[in-house]
């Protein structure tokens, strides 16, 4: 991995999602065909004003969410198979649970080459729609981050997360 200095190129922040359905994590990197991928923090902001006219603002939580659009179905891609199953079988509740990992590819673990600082979080997959235009079958989906965020390292070779 090249040493990253100065302004960090977008490709050095990697986003992985667990596409596994058997209990064993199978992380797939997001980003192909995505010109933009943003995790919206959706902070829960409470602002109150007392009788003196002073404002008090607190943030007591976040509801992070991101949108993967377009997502083109590719035969053999485990993420496609999971999304197709959700759409086909109209899955709900626990069947939509997964984990996502954000990897800082500019922060390599000095103790282990190929491992980088990463954060894993529980998430829910929401398939928004499927079909799309003539460019190919699309299954755009949203990812709702639901907490249990932990810091660790991610090995990009084996695609495994290790909690610190």
């Amino acid at each position, binding site marked *: 991995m090249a040493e990253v200095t100065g302004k960090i*190129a*977008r*490709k050095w922040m990697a986003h992985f999602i667990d596409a596994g359905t058997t209990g064993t994590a199978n992380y797939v*990197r997001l*980003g*192909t*065909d*995505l*010109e*933009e*991928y943003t995790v919206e923090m959706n902070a829960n902001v409470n602002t109150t004003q007392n009788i003196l006219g002073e404002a008090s603002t607190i943030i007591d939580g976040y509801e992070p969410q991101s949108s993967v659009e377009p997502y083109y179905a590719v035969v053999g891609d485990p993420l496609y198979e999971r999304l197709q199953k959700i759409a086909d079988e109209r899955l709900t509740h626990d069947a939509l649970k997964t984990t996502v990992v954000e990897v800082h590819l500019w922060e390599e673990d000095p103790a282990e080459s190929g491992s980088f600082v990463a954060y894993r979080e529980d998430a829910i997959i929401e398939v928004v729609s499927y079909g799309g235009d003539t460019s190919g079958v699309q299954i755009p989906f949203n990812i709702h981050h639901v907490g249990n965020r932990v810091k660790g390292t991610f090995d990009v070779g084996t695609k495994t997360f290790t909690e610190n």
Partner: protein
Amino acid sequence: MNIIELVKHILTDYPKITEFTNEINIDFTDDTHTNFGLSSVGDNLVKEDILGNQVRQHNFVLYALNQSYTNYDRLANSTFLLDLAYWLEQYKNEDPIEVTINNKTVSGKLLGLSSANAMLYMVPTGDINDGVTYQIQIYARYYLESEGL
């Protein structure tokens, strides 16, 4: 094989090409009938995803000198260009390409071909009996993997 070599190869493989020409030159059209010249006229970035993979477009102009003594000749020439445009649009092979950028070899694949402005371009000598030059602009979209970029 880079995108220029690939497109030349694809055009050479066009089943009807021998009805119209004998050889495709690069950036050069001989002054004999049935001679083709493929000119590369630019390459531009169409979009880039967050992984650094790029979709690029390379533009070409294919020039062909052909006889045009009669309306029959000219209709045949235009029909050839129309057929070629259809064939290019339907070409779906994702042929691999390999390019060198900043001394790094980057692999990719062809995404598709399209064309425009297939028409009589000029009469080189001013006398239509000496043959005329046709052109067709060809656009090749291709994909480059981020590794190495």
